[in-house]
């Protein structure tokens, strides 16, 4: 199987805070990797490094067989990384459609926005995610689930190599969780990889092929799902079990 991502010896510090310590992770094509860990473990930091938001303090990122440096989100996106951020990164004053298309707006005549196309495609994407959000509505005042759907819909505008998702099911209703998990499975079917960060063990157990657990910036576990049991994972997250 082809390796899409290989992170080796990644360190990241914010001043005195060591957010990532000698972190290694490999993700194969079409593989869904679950990443768990306590609050402040460094999960989002890792995601943001892969998304081009931060540079690692040291360490190497190999992406699709090449050593890369993602200086900004644009570099990462160009290489085939799509991201759903934990805070969703939505612009409240813009419509859902303009949020979905932000920075890759559809154009006509080379420079004018194609509002119609953006609205129609957004409607389709939101429908597929079973969301009641309407493309022409501004995001202010939308529910957590509707916002989540908009952030997820963004990842469907390209053919990514990997989709990074930071707690995509945190704010959504019970009914919508399976829809999002289905979407993650459909990505796998199309041979896209997924890095799924979540605090919800059932979600992780349901869709992931492999589970990694981090604690205080270090990886303490990285196993196939079949080798994991929930008690052990919980123990690793809380620190009751040191490593596995």
């Amino acid at each position, binding site marked *: 199987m082809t390796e899409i991502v290989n992170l080796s010896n990644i360190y990241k510090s914010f001043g005195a805070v060591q957010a990532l310590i000698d972190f290694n992770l490999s993700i194969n094509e079409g593989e869904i990797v679950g990443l768990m860990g306590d609050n402040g473990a460094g999960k989002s930091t890792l995601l943001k490094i892969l998304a081009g938001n931060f540079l690692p303090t040291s360490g190497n990122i190999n992406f699709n067989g090449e050593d890369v440096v993602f200086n900004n989100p644009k570099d990462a996106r160009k290489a085939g990384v799509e991201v759903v951020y934990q805070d969703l990164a939505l612009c409240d*004053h813009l419509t859902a459609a303009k949020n979905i298309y932000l920075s890759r707006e559809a154009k006509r005549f080379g420079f004018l926005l194609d509002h119609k196309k953006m609205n129609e495609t957004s409607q389709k994407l939101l429908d597929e995610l079973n969301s009641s959000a309407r493309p022409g509505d501004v995001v202010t005042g939308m529910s957590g689930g509707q916002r989540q759907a908009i952030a997820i819909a963004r990842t469907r505008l390209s053919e990514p190599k990997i989709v990074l998702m930071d707690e995509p099911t945190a704010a959504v209703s019970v009914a919508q969780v399976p829809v999002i998990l289905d979407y993650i499975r459909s990505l796998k079917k199309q041979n896209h990889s997924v890095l799924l960060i979540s605090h919800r063990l059932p979600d992780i157990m349901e869709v992931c092929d492999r589970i990694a657990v981090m604690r205080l910036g270090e990886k303490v576990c990285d196993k196939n799902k079949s080798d994991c049991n929930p008690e052990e994972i919980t123990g690793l997250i809380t620190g009751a079990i040191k490593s596995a």
Partner: protein
Amino acid sequence: MDLMELFTGPRKGAVADPRVARLRMYLNNLAVFFLVCAMWITLSLVTSTFATTGNITNVLRQSSLWSIIAIGQTVVLITAGIDLSIGSVVGLSSCIVALMLNKGYPISVSCVFTCLCGLGVGAVHAFGITKGKLPPFIMTLAGLTTWFGVGLLITGAMPIGNLPADFKNFSRGDVLGIPNLFLCVIGVMIPTYIILNHTRLGNHLYSIGSNRPGAELNAVPVTRTIFFAYMYSSLLASIVGILVAARLSLGIASNGFTWELQAVASSVIGGTSLFGAVGGVFGPVLGATVLSTINNGANLLNVQPYWQRILTGVIIVTVVFFDQLKKRGK
């Protein structure tokens, strides 16, 4: 459509209807429009001098100049920035164009060069804000004194007159009865409207004002977009500098003194939010017309013209106070 939203803003958890937001903007502009009408009618009734062709043209000329800089200010305010240097850039530009004309350069060359200087000034501001990470109000406040100083320096603090007749005539001329200055406003409104509403650049301006870190995460070219906003504002200030020099037949550094605040006031009267991401092209033009009417009315009523400056301050504080209430309500 829930009409209560008009007054309260969207209820928490309820979906904001964009039609209501649009209607609110439209109603705000309509209210300002009626305010202008009411002022004009009142002034026509209580003074014998307001409703004369000469005076109305005067009001419209003044409002044209303020409209153009208010549109530039609006573009910057949409990004949640502010351009406090506008007045000095108007003054400096009037000096540059007057000096060049004095030296015998053709009108076209002088105007183009002045506009290029304006673009340069805006680029300096944007550089400080993006690369130097300075707050916009600090950077442009420094610009306010700096460009005024440059204007004084290059003119030796003297007014530069003796401008060619063709140049001076432009600001008084008209095309088919439409004053040239008003045509300039239209010439600025149309491209600005298209940029704000129908281009990626426009969408990026609003996205930065709405959520700058979020825009960055979504690969919006934030630096480039901020450069555009400040360069556009300074360019429009330069154009106004040229028009002022033509109108007064004079280039002097104090042209445009405190106009940056007229621009802010015009813009917020027209519904622009100082907190970013809200604003259009019609509002600032209406706002500028309100201010120039107040200015003119005060003169005609023999009220001390200084009141207009005091009123500008009061208007800014009042409008922003309500804007902030709306924001906090959410």
